[in-house]
Every structure is written in C-alpha cells, then in structure tokens.
C-alpha cells in the first residue's frame, strides 16, 4: 500500500520529503511536493521546506515507493506492549540501587 495522494494521473509525480534538522537528530516527514524527477524533487524540497534553517539533510522519495502499514490491521500488525512489562528495566526491582545496573 502506498502513501495517500500518489496518483499516476499527474504530470509531475508526488514526492514525500523528510528533513533532518541537525546532527544527532533523525529525518522527520515534512510534507510532500511535486517534481518531474529526483533532482528537482530535492531542489524543490530545499526551497520549500528549509527556507529558515541551514545544515539540514533532505531525503525525497517518490510517494508510490513508500509501503505503509495497513491501519485496518493495526491490532494484529503492531504487537501490543501490554502484558510484556519484562521488556522494561523498571520490572526488575531487585536490581534497584545496585551500582552500574
């Protein structure tokens, strides 16, 4: 399943834009835009999404290249964290206060 909004009917295809605002951060979805190809998508993304910041990294991806999880099968697809407290450090009370644990 692709992201919403991509359509083969358009003259310029849709691209999703991800921007990393600075070192140490991760890329965050900023929005989308239209461009005829990857080179222009990148340049347009720079103009549209980073006008006020420097030193960013930009990823552009054709919208139809993105595979998304199906929200309808949320229940089955995403494992429920409930009942799995043993995945959290807090569960282990005997270790409380022991140095370096």
């Amino acid at each position, binding site marked *: 399943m692709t*992201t*919403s*909004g991509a359509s083969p009917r358009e003259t310029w295809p*849709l691209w999703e834009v991800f921007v990393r605002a600075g070192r140490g951060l991760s890329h965050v979805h900023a*929005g989308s835009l239209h461009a*005829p190809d990857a080179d222009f998508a990148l340049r347009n993304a720079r103009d549209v999404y980073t006008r006020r910041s420097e030193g960013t990294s930009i990823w552009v991806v054709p919208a139809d290249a993105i595979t998304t999880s199906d929200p*309808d099968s949320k229940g089955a697809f995403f494992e429920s964290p409930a009942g799995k407290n043993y995945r959290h450090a807090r569960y282990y009370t005997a270790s409380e206060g022991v140095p370096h644990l």
Partner: protein
Amino acid sequence: MTTDVLIDEAAEQAAFDAIIEADSRIEPRDWMPEAYRKTLIRQISQHAHSEIIGMQPEGNWITRAPSLKRKAILMAKVQDEAGHGLYLYSAAQTLGITRDEMTDQLIAGRARYSSIFNYPTPTWADMGAIGWLVDGAAICNQVPLCRASYGPYGRAMVRICKEESFHQRQGFEILLTLMQGTPAQQRMAQDAVDRWYWPSLMMFGPPDDESPNSAQSMAWKIKRFSNDDLRQRFIGMLVPQAEVLGVTLPDPELRWDDDAQRWHTSEIDWTEFHEVLSGRGPMNVERIRHRRTAHEDGAWVREAAAEYARKQAGIRSLSDERRGGTRTAAGTEAAS
C-alpha cells in the same frame, strides 16, 4: 469476499468518535466518515487556494516597492505564501485528491478561496493593511487550527503559523512608518485601513447561526471557535495596535461594552460579503484569470520536464537491463 464487507462500520465510527473526543489525531489512512473526508478536502483545499491567490494582490507591489529592504521583505512574504499553499495542497492530497484536480477546480471556478483577496491593492499602504489586518485575521483563524483533528492539516498549520508570525509584523511596521511619515503617507495609510478593515472582519464569516457548516465542523474539531468569537478576539487585538499606529478604525460605534463583555460594533454589511462571494467583487474574475494564465502558459514547461524525466528513466532502465541488475527503490539523498 472483500475485506470491505467485513468492516464493521459502527465499530469504525465509534473508534473515530473516540479519537475526536480524546482530542487526538486522525491520520491519513484511518477510517473516517465520508462527510468528514469531503469537508476536510473542501476546507484544506480552500485554504491552499487562498494562499496562492493571495500572492497576487501583494505580488502587485514587488517591482515597485519603495525601498530595497521592503522589496526583499515583500518578496519573502509572497514566497512564503506559495510555500504555505504547497504545504496545504500536500495535506489535502493525503485525503485522496490530487494537486492537478484541485488546480482544475480553482481555475474552473468550482472551488472557493478567501474572498478577501477579491479586492485590489491600489497603493503601497495596502501592503501594510493586508499584513496587519488580513494576516492578523488569518492568524486568529489559523492558530486554533494547529489543533485540528486531522493530523496532516494540524501539522501544516503549525508550520504555517511559525512562518506567518513575521507577516503581520511587517504589515504593521509598514503602516507605522507611513503614519510617522509625510502627510501624504499618513493619508495613504488611513485610506488603506478604511478600505481593508470591514472586509477583514468579514473574513471570520457570517454570524454562526447563519453559517451552515459551522456546527458540524466544530463537532469534528476541524473548527475550534465560533466565527463571532474569533471576530471579537480579533477586534480586541486591533484596538491597542491601532492606537500605537495612530490610525482610526473606521467604525464610529466601536466601543467596549462592559455589561455584555464584548466589543460593540456597527452592523456589518453582509450584503457586500455575499456579493463578493458570489463573484461580483472587483477582482474575482481577474484572480482566476491570472492563475489560469500562469497555469496554461506553464503547461509546455511542465510537459518538458515530465518528458525529460521519462526519457531519463527509459535510458536508466535500458542500461540497468544491459548490466543485468534491477532498479533499486528510487530515493535520493542530499546532505550538507
């Protein structure tokens, strides 16, 4: 048997309602009532169209801006508006409509945009009035939308509001400079305020009992405050600012009514609003003509870029075949 048949619509509606009730966010591929989707497409695309059409009244003064600094500021503002239109078209696209479709609707006169942009901008002072009054009103409308229930819309609005903060200030400062200037400049400023004040009040829409979509939009948390409520807040912001500027707001009845705890104003002439909304404002035809012309004139350019991309893709896949590989997922990175 398709999964559609198995979807329990009542359960979906209940889940949707719970998300709205909890003030959380509906995201693009969530189930949503068809009416909600349609309303959002209408509202978001209208908002996007408004940004794009709004470039025209201000773009009118870029080449004639009376100082290089003002020229730069105005260009940056209009550029921001194009950007805002893009963010909003992008949000609307997540609901299943394409940019081309929305552009076609606008050009064909089937889509609405804020009627405030159907007025001309005959003087430089209009740049000040638009920034102060029109952007001021827009900010009043927009800040609550940052908490709109539809995720992409709310996020686009947060981005827009951050950028828009300078738009109102630059308008205010244009007017302030004029009011501190020559008599001719002062007259220019007051004249612009006289022309833009009432239309900007009308931007909030008619009183809510006359506004058919209000109630449903409020229930869906797409609209967070009533029209009258927002209009009152706006006036409350303007009054002290007008005092600083030294301009007179063109409403002889304007005063704070302590008993009613609201601003008492003259009656708004809604007939003008409805006339402009119906297409009989000064610039309705021209705004669309301008947009249509830019779009049509640009068709050969867009086609050229698309054709070039197709040719390049053809060349690439041909050389991939020759090398025996397959095309990888097309992502491209640039880092600084």
